């Protein structure tokens, strides 16, 4: 598994990412990330603005080719079947995040009710436990996904420690961010499109 693909995909999913972000998302050792990004920049596949990197058009095309090549090595029937199993977890998780943000689906949760929040954190723990075997199945089918179990576990640990921003905050590796990136990876690996999945009510 080349670090090139992992780094390009991390940049795509993160938008504008620091070397640290790319390291966390790819699971690559710190010593490898800097040189890999420098190499991508030299090849014109990404560009640096201050301490952040973003994909170039050429980088996006290169990523598309590498993803297509990867897909050719993945058991399509198995990944599509696993993706179908993901759907129920996905619905449960989306509802959980919405309940975290809104009480009764309408009132913003101002997080003053510790008991309400604790119940949702508990639900997240249960959901995580039921979800881990499926993530392992994905990793078995597509080794590039190997960093996901640790990323989910890391976010959950922080939420449980009372750092609630790690549940849903964007732009950091919160449980929701990791979930959403995994979902995007799964859609790609299964050869589907987000728009079609959204229209079918599975990914909005």
């Amino acid at each position: 598994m080349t670090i090139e693909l992992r780094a390009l995909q991390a940049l795509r999913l993160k938008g504008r990412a620091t070397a640290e972000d790319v390291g966390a998302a790819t699971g690559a050792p710190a010593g490898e990330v800097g040189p890999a990004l420098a190499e991508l920049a030299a090849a014109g596949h990404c560009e640096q603005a201050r301490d952040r990197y973003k994909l170039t058009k050429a980088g996006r095309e290169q990523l598309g080719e590498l993803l297509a090549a990867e897909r050719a090595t993945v058991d399509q029937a198995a990944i599509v079947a696993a993706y179908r199993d993901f759907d129920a977890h996905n619905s449960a998780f989306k509802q959980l995040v919405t309940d975290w943000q809104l009480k009764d689906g309408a009132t913003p949760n101002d997080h003053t009710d510790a008991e309400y929040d604790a119940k949702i954190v508990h639900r997240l723990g249960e959901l995580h436990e039921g979800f881990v075997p499926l993530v392992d199945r994905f990793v078995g089918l597509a080794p590039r996904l190997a960093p996901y179990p640790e990323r989910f576990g890391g976010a959950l640990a922080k939420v449980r420690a009372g750092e609630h921003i790690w549940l849903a905050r964007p732009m950091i590796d919160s449980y929701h961010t990791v979930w959403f990136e995994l979902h995007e990876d799964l859609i790609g690996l299964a050869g589907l499109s987000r728009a079609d999945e959204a229209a079918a009510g599975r990914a909005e």
Partner: protein
Amino acid sequence: MTPGVLALDGTTGAGRDELGGKAASIEAMRAMGIPVPPAFVLTTAVCRRFDDPADGAGAVPADVWAELPDAMAELERTTGRTFGAGPSPLLVSVRSGAAVSMPGMMDTVLNLGMTDEVRDALAAESGDAVFADDTRRRFVEQFAKVVGEQAPAEPWEQLRLAVAAVFRSWRSTRATAYRRDRGIAEDGGTAVTVQAMVFGNLDDRSGTGVLFSRDPLTGAAEPYGEWLPRGQGEDVVSGRADALPLAELAAAQPNAHTELLAAAARLERAGRDVQDIEFTVQAGTLWLLQARAAKRSPEAAARHAVTLHAEGLISPAEALDRVTAEQVEALLRPRVDPRAAAAAEVLATGKPACPGIGVGVVATSGEEAEDLADTDADVVLARPTTDPDDVAAMSLARAVVTDLGGSTSHAAVVCREMAVPCVVGCGPGTSAGLAGQTVTVDGGAGVVYLGALPVVPRGALDDPDLRQLAEWARAEAGAEAGGPLTALLRARQGAVHPAEQPAAVR
């Protein structure tokens, strides 16, 4: 026995159960001496006999039918016009009216009594052959659609078919299912109201309009209305753009204007709420067609509740009934200036996902949004759905709009975390249609307007009206009650779902 036919002259003494909602409203206005086009009603008692074989099932009972010529003659006498004949022909509307309004009922046939001769007479009277032709065309089309068959040439036959169609519609599948679901009695029946038509497009001293007894947008305690000279019926209600401010009516026809405001004030006192009134002036004579409690903006809901109490019209408990928690929440958010919003073009509507107002130029890709934001432009990101790589752009955007998705969608979740105003599920193709335009997004209402609209800042927590409402709510809930007004109102509303709240005026 309940009479079959009653002239609605304000003295029937009959209740809503016999008259149905529409006739009861006409009767109440007539009793107050308010000018309403003359009308009579076939009561709900007739509906109960309609299916009775003894009366020839599916037909208007003969004894009831025999009463109609006298009732019609009274309309002719009051209006000085003749049903089905010139030179001043009388046309009527035929409407259903159960005690409770329900879907599935035959609604309305207008301009009934139309014939070739009547059309010619109308053309001669109004000096406007186009108007006469148009009235005839509207009648023919509406009759066929609503009654389900071609309009016969003979006016009384038109009336007989329309009346029978209303009574039949009480037994329609939809109406029956509606009653079953709501536990509404099967034997209530509907009434049929027959009312003289008045014409706002008859001459230069005619027109039609809408009057609110108080401003339904700002909540100011002054009338607000629109007036369309030579307009007819639905022209103003349907929002035709060239309506004039009410001051134009005051200038052109001061008597009708004065009479209108006086009627509005009396209806408001009788109804103990702000009234939404449809009126027509025909050749200088004012007629009120309909009056009902006005829909209103969140701001107006709070203001009116407090001022109506101050004027001794409603109790504190009733004032609280008039304001919802959602309306108070809306007041405590920044919002689009209501007058500007009412005049603005709505480009898209969807599900409110994160409240707030965002103004900017629409970008349809994350990259475009980021590039625009780099130039310090205000950007609204519009996407079919949002991807992980859109998140950076979403964080820079003033608002986010999506074609697909609901309130648990990625865009909704991420925007709520970042407090970016967001409307989701606007429909396929919306984002592409918005590209490049400057828009104002109201995330709390789920609306995208064309242009940069003025924004009213967040309502002050120490707003005197909200403070007054909170005081009443606390007093009502008891000594130990605390918490914000929204929580107190929500507790009173009980389990009422937000979707069932009265719609707000935009």
